[in-house]
C-alpha cells in the first residue's frame, strides 16, 4: 500500500466539483508534485490531506491509517504555505518552535532542535527578529524550518517558491531536493510551474479540472504525455496534424502534408487521424547547401531569438510555423534563410485526436 493514498476523493464547493473522483498513491520517500493550472484542484487535494477541509466522498490514508475526520492538528502533516503564513506577532524563534512548544517538550530540547533548524536554513542570529524584519527568502526558510522541525515523515509544500525571485527560486529547488533526499521524507509539492515540477520530482501528477490526467516520472510526462493538454502544459510543443499511413509491429508511419515520419509507437490503425507532439529540441536545423535531398523536410526561418544557452527559431514549413530550439548556437550568429529540418523520431509522440 502506498504511504499516502487518496481513494476516489470528491470535493464539491457548492455546485463546483473541485475534486472529481481522484485516486492517487504516493510511495514512501517519494517527491510527488501536483502540477496544473490555477483552479485545477491541486491545492484542494493537498488540503484534504492536511485536514483543512473534508472530502465529500472517498478516503484518504496516511501510512495505512484512514485520516478522514481527523482534525488537522492530529494529522502530523506539516505544510509550508504559499504566503508562508508566518505568525506576524511571533519572532523567528517563536515561529519555528511553536509546534514543539505545543507538544510541551522541555526547553533544552526545543532549543536544540530550533538551533538545528536555524543551522540548516542559515538563519543563525535571527531568532529574535519578527517576520516583517526578514527578506522574502529568509521568511521562506523560516516557514520551512517551522514545518520540518516537527520531524514528521511527510512535508506538504504549497507553491512555496512562488514569492521568490527567479534566481533564488532555482537555487532553492536543488537545496530542497537535497534536504528531502537526506531526510528521506515523503513530499507533496503543489505548483503550476512545469520547470519546478520537472526539476525536483520523483513523480508528477498532472491535474486538470479536478481530475488527474497523468501520473508519471518527469520523463514520462514530458516525452510521453497522455493528452494534448499535458503536452501543451508541460513545456513548449509543436502539434502536427498527421495521418497514420502504415502500422508495423513496433512502429508507425505518418504522413504530414506529404512529409513522412516513422516513429516507434503502437496503438494506432492505418487511416487514423492523429496529432504528433514535437518538442522544439527534438528538431535540428541544417543550412541548405544548394540541392535538396529527396524527402527532406525543408523550411524557412522567419524569426529567431537568442537566449544564450540556446537559440529559438520560428521555422515556416508545410504551411505551419514550428518552434525549433538549437541547443548549441554557433559563435558567429544565427542561421538564416532556408534550412533542412531533421526530427529525432524516437522522441516524437503521437496523441489521439481530441475533440
Amino acid at each position, binding site marked *: 500500500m502506498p504511504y499516502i493514498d487518496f481513494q476516489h476523493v470528491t470535493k464539491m464547493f*457548492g455546485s463546483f466539483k473541485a475534486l472529481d473522483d481522484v485516486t492517487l498513491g504516493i510511495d514512501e520517500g517519494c517527491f510527488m508534485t501536483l502540477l496544473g493550472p490555477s483552479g485545477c484542484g491541486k491545492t484542494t487535494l493537498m488540503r484534504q490531506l492536511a485536514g483543512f477541509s473534508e472530502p465529500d466522498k472517498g478516503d484518504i490514508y496516511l501510512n495505512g491509517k484512514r485520516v478522514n475526520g481527523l*482534525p488537522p492538528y492530529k494529522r502530523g502533516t506539516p505544510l509550508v504555505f504559499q504566503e508562508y503564513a508566518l505568525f506576524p506577532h511571533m519572532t523567528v524563534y517563536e515561529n519555528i518552535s511553536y509546534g514543539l512548544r*505545543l507538544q510541551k517538550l522541555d526547553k533544552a530540547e526545543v532549543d536544540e532542535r530550533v538551533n538545528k533548524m536555524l543551522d540548516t536554513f542559515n538563519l543563525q542570529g535571527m531568532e529574535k527578529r519578527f517576520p516583517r524584519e526578514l527578506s522574502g527568502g529568509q521568511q521562506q526558510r523560516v516557514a520551512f524550518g517551522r514545518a520540518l522541525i516537527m520531524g514528521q515523515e511527510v512535508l506538504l509544500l504549497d507553491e512555496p517558491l512562488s514569492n521568490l525571485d527567479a534566481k533564488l527560486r532555482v537555487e532553492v529547488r536543488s537545496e530542497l531536493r537535497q534536504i528531502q533526499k537526506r531526510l528521506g521524507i515523503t513530499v507533496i509539492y503543489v505548483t503550476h510551474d512545469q520547470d519546478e515540477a520537472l526539476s525536483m520530482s520523483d513523480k508528477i501528477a498532472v491535474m486538470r479540472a479536478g481530475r488527474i490526467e497523468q501520473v508519471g516520472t518527469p520523463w514520462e510526462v514530458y516525452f510521453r504525455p497522455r493528452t494534448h493538454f499535458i503536452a501543451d502544459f508541460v513545456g513548449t510543443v509543436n502539434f502536427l496534424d498527421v495521418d497514420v499511413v502504415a502500422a508495423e509491429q513496433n512502429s508507425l508511419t505518418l504522413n504530414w502534408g506529404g512529409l513522412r515520419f516513422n516513429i516507434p509507437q503502437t496503438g494506432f490503425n492505418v487511416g487514423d487521424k492523429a496529432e504528433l507532439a514535437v518538442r522544439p529540441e527534438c528538431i535540428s536545423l541544417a543550412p541548405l547547401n544548394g540541392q535538396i535531398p529527396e524527402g527532406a523536410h525543408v523550411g524557412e526561418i522567419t524569426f529567431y531569438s537568442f537566449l544564450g544557452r540556446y537559440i529559438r527559431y520560428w521555422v515556416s514549413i508545410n504551411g505551419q510555423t514550428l518552434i525549433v530550439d538549437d541547443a548549441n548556437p554557433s559563435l558567429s550568429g544565427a542561421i538564416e534563410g532556408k534550412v533542412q529540418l531533421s526530427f529525432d523520431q524516437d522522441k516524437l509522440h503521437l496523441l489521439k485526436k481530441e475533440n
Partner: protein
Amino acid sequence: MELILLSKSSERINEMKRLKNEPLLLIAIILIVAFTIYFVISPVFQLVTIASPSDYSILVETPRWVRALGNSLLMMVLSTVSCTAVAFAFAYTMTRLDVPLKKFFRFITMLPIVSPPFIVALSYILLFGVQGIITKQLLGLQVDIYGRLGLWIVQTITFFPYAFSVIYGVMGKVSTNLEYAAYNMGASRWRVFKDVLWPLCRPGVAGGALMAAIQVLTDFANPMMIGGDLALLPTEAYMQVVGWYDMKTAAILATLLLVPSLAIFFIQRFWVGRRSYVTVTGKEISLKPYEPHKLVKWGMFAFCCFISLFVVTVYGTLLYGSFTKAIGYDWSLTFSNYSYVWGKWQQIWNSIKFSTISALFAALLGMILAYIVQKKSVGINGFLDFLAVLPSAIPGMFLGLSYVIAFNSPPLKLTNTSAIMVLALLFWNLPTCYSASNAGIQQIGNSVEDAALNLGANSFRSFKDVILPLLKIPFLSGFVLSFLRSVTCLSVIIFIYSPSTATGTTSILGLVSYGQWGAAAACTVVLIAIAFTVLYVAEYFLNKRGASLNI
C-alpha cells in the same frame, strides 16, 4: 479561489446549512443580529412611527419646519464644500509637499475631532464677536457674526478634520509612481493633477465630503451658539423636547433629519464605496512626490498655516479663558473654574466610565463582527456587514431620542440608567469599531489559522495563540476611536442622560446654557486632556507594533 466561480444563492444556502455543524458560530450570529435589531433598528422604527402619518402633515403646515429643513440642507452644502476644500488642501500638503510643520498640522486636524462641542463657537464669539478680542480690540471693527456666515466659518473649522481623515487616507495610498508615469508620458503638472491624482482621489474626496456632510447636518452645538435666527432641524428638535416637552414634534423633526442622513449613508455605501480604486492594503508611496510649482507649494503651505493659526487661536483662547475669572470680561487669572470642574468630578468620571465600558463592548462586538464577516462564510456576510455599519446612518440625536421612546417601559425599561447611556454609545460607535477592526483583520493572512492547526494546535489554541494576539491591534484601535468619540459626544446622550448619569459634555451643555462659560471652558480642557492622553498612550503602543490609528 475556486469559490469565486460559484453561483451565489445556492452557495449561500449551503453555507447557512453548514452552520448547523458549527452551532456556536450560529448562536453568535443570531445574538449579534438580535442585538442589533433590538437596539438599533427597532428603536429607530418606534421613533419614526410614534407620530401617525397624519401627524407628519405639520411639516407642510408649519413654515418654520420647512425653513428649518431648507436651512439645514443649505448649511450642509455650504459647509461641506468648504470643509472638503480645506481638508483637501491639508491632505495634499501633507502627502505631496515637502514642507515643515507637518506634525503640527496633523495635530491641528485631530484637535477638533477630540474636543467636545460648543467650544469652537464659544471661542469664536470671544474672538470675533462684538466685543471680540480680534475684531474689536485688535482691529477696532464692529462685526456681526451671528447667522449663516458665522455658522459657516465655525462649522468649517469644526468639521473639516472629518473630511480630512478620509481624504488623507486615500491620497496617501495613491502611489506617486502613477504620477511619475504620467509625467513620463509628457503630462504637465496640472495635467497630472487633473488626469491622475484627482480622479484617483475622487472617491476619497467624495467619502470625506459625505463624512463632513453628516456631521454638519446633525450639528447641534454651533447653531445653538451662533446660528442667530437661523432655524435648523437638530436645534429645533432639541428645543421641542426641552422647551415644550413635545416628543411627537421632536420625533417628526428628527425623522426629517434622518432622511438626508440615510441618503448620505446609501450614497456612501453603494456609490462612493464601489468607486474606490485604492484598496486599504494598497502600496506605500514608493517615490518621493514630484513637487508642484513653488507658488502653489508655498501658497498651500500658507493656507494650512492660516487655518492652523485660526484653530490654535480658538483653542488658545479657550485654554486661557478657562483660567480667568470671568471669561470674556475679567481676564485675570484664577483656578476657580477648575475647582468648579473638580466639584463636577462625578460627571467627568461618568464620561470616562461610560466611554470606557461602551468602547470596550463596541470594540469587542465590532471585532467579532469583522472577524465573522471576513473570515467565515456564513451565507449572510453581506447582511452582517450592512448591520454593522448601519448605525452610522443614524444621527446621534435621533438614536438618543429613539432610545428614550423605545426603552421607557417594560420589558426593558432603561431610561435614567447607566445602561441606556452605555448601550446608546455602544451601538453608535459600532461602525467605527467595525471599520477599524476590518482594516486590521484584512491584514491577517488567510492561512495563519490553518498554519497553527497544521502545526498541532487545536482550534482553541490556534484562536488563542494566533488570532487573538493579531486581533489585539484592531481591537485597540477600535477601542480608542470609540472612546474618543464617546468622551466628546453630546448628541447621542443629550436626551437620555439623567442627573446621576450626566457626563462631561452634558455639563458643558448645562454650563453653556446657563452662561457659565469659564467653567464650560475648564470642563472642555479637562475632557480634551483626557482624550489626548488616551490617544497618545494608544499611539505609543500601536507605533511600537508598527500600527497606527486612523483618525
